């Protein structure tokens, strides 16, 4: 499936920003089942410097500096991505067991496993904790295939937690999300990662987009989509598997991956520093995920 993704972020400041330096993770990376066909990023006002590169995690990052005084900064990322069908309904009762994974993580000497050990540790926004281990533990029977156990964990999180965009912000810690049983996709991804790491399994954070389909008969609203987040777990035999706890499914054809890292802090879509700008600014975000195969139907003006 081919998608065209447009992601616009607009900052409104009450006073002039004299200078803005920013680092973005807005353009999709290529993965085993995804190819980024083209990608451009547009910044208004025109930046004095702008550099694309691949970061430590292999993500596409873009660093820019705006020196022109401005009260509105608009960043638009446009990309075309081809995503392979991953047979999302596939059963997950296969692969090595939880106990085998734990052993292999210590004893295996292959590069992917050694590198995956980075994702078993505390990270800036996700700490290991016994309460998360206690919560997730019952699904992870030693003799059960890891992927099957993770599938169950995702299902439980979906059942036990309420999706509530009003509850959390970027800085809400996992412990609070866990205590109140509510949050948004980013929180559920962090929570799942915390559960897995607390049990000794490697898990990473994935940010990207999810195609949403309009109700039958209705046409899709422009800018109605959103950026999304989920997680991936590593099994030394099976490799990385992506799960979407917010929607209780495997992340598959409708999931477009932008970037991955240990948690949100590694892949923040836009971060940076400004000089000036005054106290209270406003941010607007618009995302459109458009299927190119059905271009006639969902053409965006």
């Amino acid at each position, binding site marked *: 499936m081919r998608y065209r993704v447009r992601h616009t972020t607009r900052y409104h400041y009450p006073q002039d920003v004299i200078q803005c330096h920013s680092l973005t993770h807005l353009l999709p990376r290529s993965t085993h089942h995804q190819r980024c066909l083209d990608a451009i990023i547009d910044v208004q006002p025109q930046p004095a410097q702008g550099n694309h590169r691949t970061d430590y995690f292999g993500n596409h990052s873009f660093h820019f500096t705006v020196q022109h005084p401005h009260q509105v900064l608009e960043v638009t990322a446009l990309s075309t991505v081809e995503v392979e069908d991953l047979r999302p309904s596939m059963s997950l009762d296969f692969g090595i067991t939880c106990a085998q994974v734990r052993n292999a993580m210590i004893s295996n000497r292959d590069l992917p496993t*050694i590198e995956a*050990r980075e994702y078993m540790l505390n990270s800036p926004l996700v700490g290991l904790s016994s309460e998360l281990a206690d919560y997730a533990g019952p699904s992870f029977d030693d003799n059960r295939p890891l992927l099957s156990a993770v599938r169950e964990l995702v299902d439980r999180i979906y059942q036990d937690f309420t999706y509530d965009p009003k509850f959390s912000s*970027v800085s809400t810690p996992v412990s609070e999300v866990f205590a109140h049983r509510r949050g948004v996709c980013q929180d559920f991804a962090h929570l799942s990662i915390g559960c897995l790491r607390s049990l000794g399994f490697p898990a990473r954070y994935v940010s990207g987009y999810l195609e949403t389909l309009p109700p039958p008969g209705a046409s899709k609203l422009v800018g109605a989509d959103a950026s999304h987040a989920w997680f991936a777990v590593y099994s030394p035999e099976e490799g990385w598997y992506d799960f979407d706890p917010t929607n209780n499914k495997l992340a598959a054809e409708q999931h477009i991956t932008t970037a991955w890292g240990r948690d949100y802090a590694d892949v923040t879509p836009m971060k940076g520093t400004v000089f000036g700008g005054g106290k209270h600014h406003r941010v607007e975000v618009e995302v459109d995920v458009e299927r190119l195969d059905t271009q006639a139907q969902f053409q965006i003006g």
Partner: protein
Amino acid sequence: MEVPEFANSQSWIAYQDSQPAHDEVYLADGQIREHWKYLLESLAFLGPEALNERERKARRILRDDGATYNDYRQEQPTRSWQMDPIPLLIDSEEWAEIESGLLERAELFNLILKDIYNERQLVRHGIIPPELLFSHSGFLRPCQGITLPGEHQLIQYAADMIRAADGSMRVVADRSQSPSGTGYALENRTVMSRVFPSLFRDSHVHRLSLYFQRLRAKLSQLCPNSDIPRIVILTPGSYNETYFEHAYLANYLGFSLVQGNDLTVRDGYVWMKALDGLRRVDVILRRVDGNYCDPVELKGDSQLGIPGLLEVIRCGRVAIANPLGSGILENPALIRYLPEIARFFLGREPRLASVPTYWCGDSADRDFVLANLHNLVLKPTTRGSLNQSVYGLELSPTELDDWRQKILRNPLRFAAQEFIYPSSLPVWENNRFQPRSAILRSYAVASGSSYTIMPGGLTRAGKSRSTALISNQLGSISKDTWVLASEPEKQVSLLHGEQETTARVQPWDSLGLPSRVVENLFWVGRYAERAESALRLLRTVFVELNGIEPLPPATYPMLLRAVTHLTTTYPGFVRGDDGLFSNPEPELLAVVTDQMRPGSVAYTLNAMLTAADEVTEVLSADTQRIINDLRDELETLKNNLQTGLASAPEEALDPLVTTLLALSGLTQESMMRGFGWHFMEMGRRLERAWQTISLVRSLLVPVVSDRDEEVLLESVLLSVEALISYRRRYNGQMDIANGLELLLHEPVNPRSLYYQLDRLAAHMNQMPSASGQRGLPAYSRFILEASTSLKLSNPLELARHDADAHLRKNLDQMLSRVQHLLGDSASAIADRFFDHTGGPQPLALLSGEL
């Protein structure tokens, strides 16, 4: 001479160490080691009295140089740097061995650093566990793949070493973030060579200057841009514990000392915000921890860094040493794997041994540490004020258990070392030698295809022999370290260095001062003058209050109100409550000593000292000395006036006035007429003009009886030191118009308003003009207008008033206008020359992903 006998006859140089450890000076049988004999004989010859005297001299020099070490956990955070007069001696044969071990270790850490931020072979090949790297906060992932030009990534490296019982040196810690102490080592050496000139000369001590030459050359070679490089030292600021050293090294090496806000990233380069605009910076020697250097990509709330810096580094348009991310090498867990790492990279084990080290991330090590904690030194893998080493020996059983729990909760964060009693060496205390634990920090700088090792380094001695802990923060004392050459060395010094051709560096010039520096100099001038005016008036008020003749009743509240007006310590006496006037002492005392009260003498002087601390590197040694005196006198003043005003309070204020005068005299006589000087002078003149006007408006504008007017005029003249000239000139006839002429219009009176405005205009003429500037700049226009108003006025007209008026309207209007213009001019100077960008703030965070 039989040595033991000699030692016995001089019992004060002998001592008994309580620990079964190596002693630096004495052999087990009490004989003095060969390389110590000359020093000990010379010191014995000097005798305890002379040694005490030399020690005092050393302390005085250190104080005069402003050598301090700040520890903000202490009540008195700024401490003089402590140096013991007995150096640590190392003979050249042993040093050669240590030196080659250090060279190899520096090379090894350089290879580790390269590997960690590039291929990570050590991790891939299982030489080090991945967690050692991945769990450490010093591993800065955004620095992946960044390389400095040249063969070395690790530019400066330091190792802390102690001597084990068998006499061999062992490394206990590695320093790679931005090793501190080279400046203190240099200062120790400077002091020692002045305090013991002949002893130093005859001991043939290896010199330190080559190390700094090599550092300078290496930094200049790192320059990624064409042209002669401009090099800066990036400091976190005057609150940093080793700030003295930052300023000292900046001066010694000829680099500018800057803080994060002095630099900016524009057009893909790093620039210094200088007085005359932006100047490109090519190389940064940093004393700010890596993680704090760029809030865009690293620690987002850092105010110490330069937003966008990392991207400029990545693009190869600025070089920074040590590179960001080098702090990872300070993880003590690396020491545990060093033999394997050395075999992997070099094919052999390191020559210089480390103290046996364990890492709790390894399960066997963890078990060992838990079982033997009482004998080990527990070291958090990340350094910080909350992460100090813990000595198992000093812990109670419950404390040991607490630490075991902490280890079990987070094993990756703890390393441990075997406790080895350091060797003992003597310090000079209570008229004799006393044994103390010794630790030596030695330094390496990348140079050519290898490293240059500083001969010796910084020796520190423990507070007492029984405490195992030695660190600057815990009250240890430092020593010079003498590596004894077999023959005298050829003298090299940075000032006449032969290597100058290879180390071409943009020279310092006063236009290149960061805006922050000129702003602080401006304020040093203003605050100094403000404090002086306040002190002078207070002195006059005390004299009048305690005078033989009682003051006319009407003048009494006016004088007191003038104190409030001048110092702006409102409401003060302006409130006019009778109780305050019947007992003015507490309020007057507060105006002098209450440092929490804006406008008080203590507050103003503290503000001045803070501004001076920010610009230490541009103040001369003499100025530094006067600043120190002011600090001391401020302390003394508080003590003297603590129990109320002394019988002659004006005398208590005299020393401060004298010192402030010395400061302004020194500014006139020995400060280079660069832009720093112009700004300090402008600050001073602006303030003095403002204060003179305030004084005249408080005391001479109101219309009072002739008798009262005489008293007030006398007080004003007394407080601006013009009374004697007045009497001489006008035959003692007290007349307000004459007084105004002398105070306001007299061109040759250096305290007249005319003189201040004249000088201000002259300084302003020297300012660099802004690009595209048409006509006079705003700050000059305001002063021209002020000066014209003054010159067009006439003392007789100004003195005149209507018969029933309470005020001299003409005088008040003119002065009020001039005061206003002075304020406008000061703002215009600030707008034009000072930096207003303010601190960086984070770009709004997204509300997160849904």
